[in-house]
């Protein structure tokens, strides 16, 4: 089981992703520069947050044409797990590996805070498992479970046409929605104007996941939340299963 963290010029959450995978979960992890031709040797591909190419033109619009993205698309097609966080989500949408697009926040403000999201589908490769928190409490995936994770973005306003939204709902591709602290999907709890409070979606095949919240920054009580562990642990277990390697379990749980 080997994970890749892709680095684009302007990525700035690459070290957070690397730290979470390698040090919190003990997974063999490597940085992959965007000019590399292949990510074939990896079981999990992570596109981290940041401001690739300065967000010029549109967020992710230029990164999408980086040499490595050709290989990411091929591996995604083959069913390999791809996780795009924040700018990574934007790049996956620009690359058409996920439907829809992320536009400027409704408020025009850059938002940077911890928010609640609700698991809408606990069957995906990214939202199915159970983790133990530092205080010994279990966090078990179920539809309706709230995860508190940080967001930090100016363009997180998920948009898609009506047909695409219907399709996402019908295929249960919506994995996370923004909610209030009680788990209600309300307009007040929508931080950026996303259609239907969407915070994270998977592709039709279920192996490509993009989300605006940062699970990698919510894997340690020191960071104010450990809820992101559920997502990282889920994807690690799923990737391990696909490669038929016994899934490495968190060293510290």
């Amino acid at each position, binding site marked *: 089981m080997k994970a890749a963290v892709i680095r684009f010029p302007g990525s700035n959450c690459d070290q957070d992703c690397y730290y979470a995978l390698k040090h919190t979960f003990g997974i063999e992890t490597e940085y992959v520069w965007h000019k590399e031709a292949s990510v074939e040797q990896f079981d999990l591909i992570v596109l981290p947050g940041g401001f690739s190419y300065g967000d010029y*033109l549109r967020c992710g*619009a230029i990164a999408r044409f980086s040499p490595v993205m050709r290989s990411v698309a091929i591996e995604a097609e083959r069913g390999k797990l791809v996780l795009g966080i924040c700018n990574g989500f934007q790049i996956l949408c620009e690359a058409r590996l996920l439907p829809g*697009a992320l*536009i400027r926040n*409704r408020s*025009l403000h850059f938002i940077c805070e911890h928010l609640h999201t609700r698991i809408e589908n606990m069957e995906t490769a990214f939202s199915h498992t159970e983790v133990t928190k530092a205080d010994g409490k279990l966090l078990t995936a179920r539809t309706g479970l709230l995860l508190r994770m940080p967001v930090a973005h100016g363009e997180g306003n998920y*948009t*898609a046409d009506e047909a695409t939204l219907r399709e996402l709902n019908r295929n249960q591709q919506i994995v996370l929605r923004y909610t209030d602290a009680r788990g209600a999907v309300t307009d007040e709890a929508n931080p950026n*104007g996303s259609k239907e409070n969407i915070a994270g979606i998977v592709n039709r095949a279920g192996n490509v996941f993009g989300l605006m919240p940062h699970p990698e920054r919510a894997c340690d009580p020191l960071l104010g939340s450990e809820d992101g562990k559920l997502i990282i642990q889920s994807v690690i277990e799923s990737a391990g299963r696909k490669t038929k390697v016994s899934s490495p379990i968190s060293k510290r749980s």
Partner: protein
Amino acid sequence: MKPGAGGFSLEAMKAKVTVMPKKSVLDPQGVAVRDAMRHHGLPDVTSVRIGKFMEIDIDGADEAKLHEICRDLLSNPVIEDYELQVEA
């Protein structure tokens, strides 16, 4: 004029690309600017849409290729429409 790939001379051209958010897509910048214009003494402004304008200098214009690039790179068809104008 300078020699092109096939020995043909390529004329200096200008391509002008306008990219606008689709009507169906919320344009938060446009809304903010509309409101600011109203506060600046133009209460009758009903709508502002903000897009991008790109001026491209190019020796010889392959219009089909330019359209392809407009669609794949310069605009995102999920949220935007573009217009391409090529001038000598």
